[in-house]
């Protein structure tokens, strides 16, 4: 099996990931988002239905994204798109995530070997 990231660690990062994708790609539908995430993370992050749709619906409810429906291949496809308010929000969220990653980077940097520095 692929080396997947545990859902525990992913918990707070899914929303920023989705927002970042929407910001870059314009409008996306559910399946497209999961595919993109899986591809970009080289299979390490797999979005399940149960993780994706609650977040998308919540974002819609908070007026961060809006939806458009189109008939594609005999079925309705729901596209998600950032609202102007959502655009600002996503910038904020992405920045917040970057700062968080930086902090984590500092915290999890391999500690310098004290012994080697001895002169």
């Amino acid at each position: 099996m692929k080396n997947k990231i545990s859902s525990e660690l992913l918990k707070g990062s899914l929303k920023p990931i989705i927002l970042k994708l929407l910001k870059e790609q314009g409008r996306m539908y559910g399946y497209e988002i999961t595919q993109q995430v899986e591809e970009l993370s080289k299979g390490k992050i797999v979005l399940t239905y149960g993780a994706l749709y609650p977040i998308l619906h919540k974002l819609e409810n908070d007026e961060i994204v809006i939806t458009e429906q189109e008939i594609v291949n005999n079925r309705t496809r729901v596209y998600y798109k950032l609202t102007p308010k959502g655009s600002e929000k996503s910038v904020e969220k992405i920045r917040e995530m970057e700062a968080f990653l930086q902090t984590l980077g500092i915290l999890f940097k391999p500690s310098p070997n004290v012994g080697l520095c001895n002169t």
Partner: protein
Amino acid sequence: MQYLTSEQIDAIDAELKNAEINYSHLPEDLLDHICCDIEKYLNDGLNFNEAYQSVFDKIGINGLKEIQEATIFYVKLNLMKMKKLMNFMALIGGISVTAGMFFKLMHWPGGGIVLTFGFLFLFLGFFPAALMNLRKELEQKFFSAGFLIYLVGFLTFVITGAAMIFKMMHWPGGGLLVSASMILLFLIFFPVLFFKIVRTEKNRIVNLSLVLFAFLFAGFITVSNLNSARNVSNVFQYEDLTAELAYYKEAMKTQASSTVFSEAEYTASLKLFNTLNTDIEDLKSLILNDRKDIYELNFRLNHFSLLEDVYDSRLIALKEEIEAYKQQMLKLAGNSKDLSILINALFNTEDYQLEYYHRPWIERKFDRSYVGKLTSLQQLQKYIYQTQYEVLRYQVLNSSTPE
């Protein structure tokens, strides 16, 4: 690239319907997503049945339902938290208002504070929260036509609530607020609400607010008016006073023949007493309108009295007579401290004055229901008889002591 046929899509759609997926556009989301997943497997070389099986294996037996539940839960998370808080505020506010009203009715201390606290809880806490929740549930913009009625309703509630507090605490401006709230309530709110309820299906939050509000309103009417209840208690008071009056009248007869200490002053006081007594009797019969039955008067709602105006010249004259009588009786009381205190207390014609509340003596006595006015007059009559008797008794006792 291989795509699913309409029949295959219908089969998946049937599966979603079977799981009762109906929240928002979640059915469309899931249908498309499942189709995409299956198509991916088809392109990997599986046949439809195998692909279908693998996708639904991943979702799990109750998976579809769980996805819907998770979605609803996540979307309504804040709403649910708010609802819990709202219920709590309604509970606390309701209890405080009920307790406050009860305290007020029993004239126990602290009723006003509890009542105000309860009202603030309801009108600054519960109703705004209910309004916010309602907006979210109806999924409407705050200042849209569809939501306007709720805004107006909220405004009505707030103004009426303020009117209640102002009236109960006797703050200035209460009358104006009551008029405003009455206009809003009966000319706008209730008609609109009536049509709304007739035309649309019931909404839980609105009904809850409405029931609570109707309850408060009924409570307010009861506490602030209590006209019939007050009249009944006034009738009892009137009966008591009549009995006491009879007692003093009788007592005066037994003392009347005795010698008095200061004859001239006493004769002067009797003159004042008689005028006052006649005037009170006149006013009483004016109210009773030649009817001797006070119980009948109590239930005659449209009884027209010539004493409707509190600042009637006869009442003003009465007040002056009382003051003159008081001065005369104080003279006769001489250096008896007890008697002076009694006279000053019985004929205290000063206005009632608190920090934020001022009520002239004449309004306190006569700005009442018919039975209330009658009771005030009866009380004054009892007071003059009582004073006359006490002073006479004092004079008689003093004139006999030297011997």
